[in-house]
């Protein structure tokens, strides 16, 4: 074998039947592949260390007393560093939310699947566009065109079920996991 395709030119024997491939090429590739897997495995602890730590995850649940919240009133509580909107809806707001034809919605959801008890609406108060806190919790706040919430950052309007109706946000305000402990107490998380 006067010539070899191998750049090192040491005349490594060609594998039987192989055109210019040699055992050395195979070893290069195999070593490279094992090395790549090793680097990826070694990189994972560095990457994963940036995910939420155990103490952050441990702050997962809180209880909220609903008794002082009068009809038509809203309160904001903090859960996992996020504002949670709890609204004691009036009969008018409930009717408005139920009357909507879900086929017309950007993120179609019935009001029934967004609440456990119709008078209590519990939402994560973070606009699904870019994370601002929508206005509408205080009586003096603008509530948007649909009697719900209005995000001042980029103009998203949410209805009295927290569903996106107008503006750039793609999704409805999220409903956090919660459960009624009794008639006037809920546990978030």
């Amino acid at each position, binding site marked *: 074998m006067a010539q070899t395709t191998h750049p090192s030119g040491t005349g490594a024997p060609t594998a039987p039947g192989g055109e210019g491939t040699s055992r050395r090429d195979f070893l290069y590739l195999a070593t490279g592949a094992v090395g790549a897997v090793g680097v990826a495995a070694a990189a994972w602890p560095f990457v994963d260390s940036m995910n939420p730590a155990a103490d952050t995850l441990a702050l997962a649940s809180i209880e909220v007393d609903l008794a002082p919240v009068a009809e038509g009133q809203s309160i904001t509580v903090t859960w996992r560093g996020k504002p949670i909107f709890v609204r004691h809806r009036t009969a008018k707001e409930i009717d408005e939310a139920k009357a909507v034809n879900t086929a017309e919605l950007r993120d179609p959801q019935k009001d029934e699947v967004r609440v456990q008890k119709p008078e209590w609406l519990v939402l994560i108060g973070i606009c699904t566009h870019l*994370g601002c806190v929508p206005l509408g919790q205080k009586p003096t706040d603008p509530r948007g065109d649909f009697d719900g919430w209005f995000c001042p950052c980029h103009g998203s309007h949410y209805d009295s079920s927290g569903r996106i109706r107008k503006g*750039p946000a793609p999704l409805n305000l999220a409903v956090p996991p919660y459960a009624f402990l009794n008639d006037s107490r809920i546990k978030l998380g």
Partner: protein
Amino acid sequence: MSQGHTSTFKNPVVKWIDSRLPIFTMMHHEYNEYPMPRNVNYLWAFGAIAAVMLIIMIATGLVLAMQYAANTAIAFDSVERIMRDVNYGWLLRYLHANGASMFFIAVYIHIFRGLYYGSYKAPREILWILGVVIFLAMMGTAFMGYVLPWGQMSFWGATVITNLFSAFPIVGDPIVTWLWGGFSVDNPTLNRFFALHFLLPFVILALVILHTAALHICGSNNPLGIDAKGPQDTVPFNPYVTVKDLFAVVCFLILYAAFVFFMPNYMGHPDNYIPANPLVTPAHIVPEWYFLPFYAILRAIPDKLGGVLAMFGAIAVLFVLPWLDTSKVRSCKFRPIYRQFFWVLAIDALVLGYAGAMPAEGIWLLIARIGTTYYFFHFLILLPLLGKLERPLPLPASISEPVLKGGGHVAAGATAKPMEKA
């Protein structure tokens, strides 16, 4: 010495070092005798100005980091302590905050100079791409630096910008949680932003060294956009360009000092002197001025993912610019049609910047949409077509020819001699 570098330096200490590590030879070669086209104008000084700003940012940032505390409970107060109690803390912080703006001013002028004179064209593609990477790294560094004082704009700017990544389907939310290290922008986020804000300037410094290395391989472009054809077209870097750059740097520093001493908060937002509150969003969230054109593009698109892609796309087109522009003529001086569109692009960038500072509704939304459309039209349609359609003006035979009548013609090597005095 049979091995190693043969040094020509006379000083025995310098010679001893230089023959083992030829750093003096390299510096002499790159910053003393490096041939600069003799016709470069003051726009060529903005690379040096930007480099000076980077050094100032690293120096002020280092001492500020010795006083700053990256914890949500005390970050805001630690910045106020720097302003009131730390010796010259007010000066260092205002130098750093305004320095970021001045750095971007220098870099934007540097970029537009490259666009006007076609400095991105062959053989300078890698040089240009490295520049765009530096620009991206600067944007990341500036964004994370703005979060550190932990005011309202810091917090909500961080929230809005990190939420951009949630636009991507499936991977979006896990990425955002990973960026935050939690379920909202909070202490882990501030902490890592500080670490990265400290690291990235050194990455930029390394990129600047590569950028300069690539520049010195191809040589500097010049206002005529034609290659230097010999010594009659160039002057040695030192003293001609060092002095010119130094004068430009001093003028620029005077402007910088005017901001630092007379209107240090002009380019900031009053809202950032309100401590961060995760439950109250400011009525009008605006990024720092140097991000405004991109922010306008983000908001111009009515779809969330579309807006994010358009904003990243606005920078991505810069990476492929050397291949989008099909004209072989570098300088706008010889491209009568493109020269006009260059100014349209420059005005477009300013208009987008202004629209980005205004509320995204009514006329401003329309203006931002027109501006965004033109921006992409310019790069994706106009540049490829214009290179084929436009008839460029005749190029001069050499750099020295139009200046020194009859002299410096390529063939006329003999006439080069009397010009050495110039």
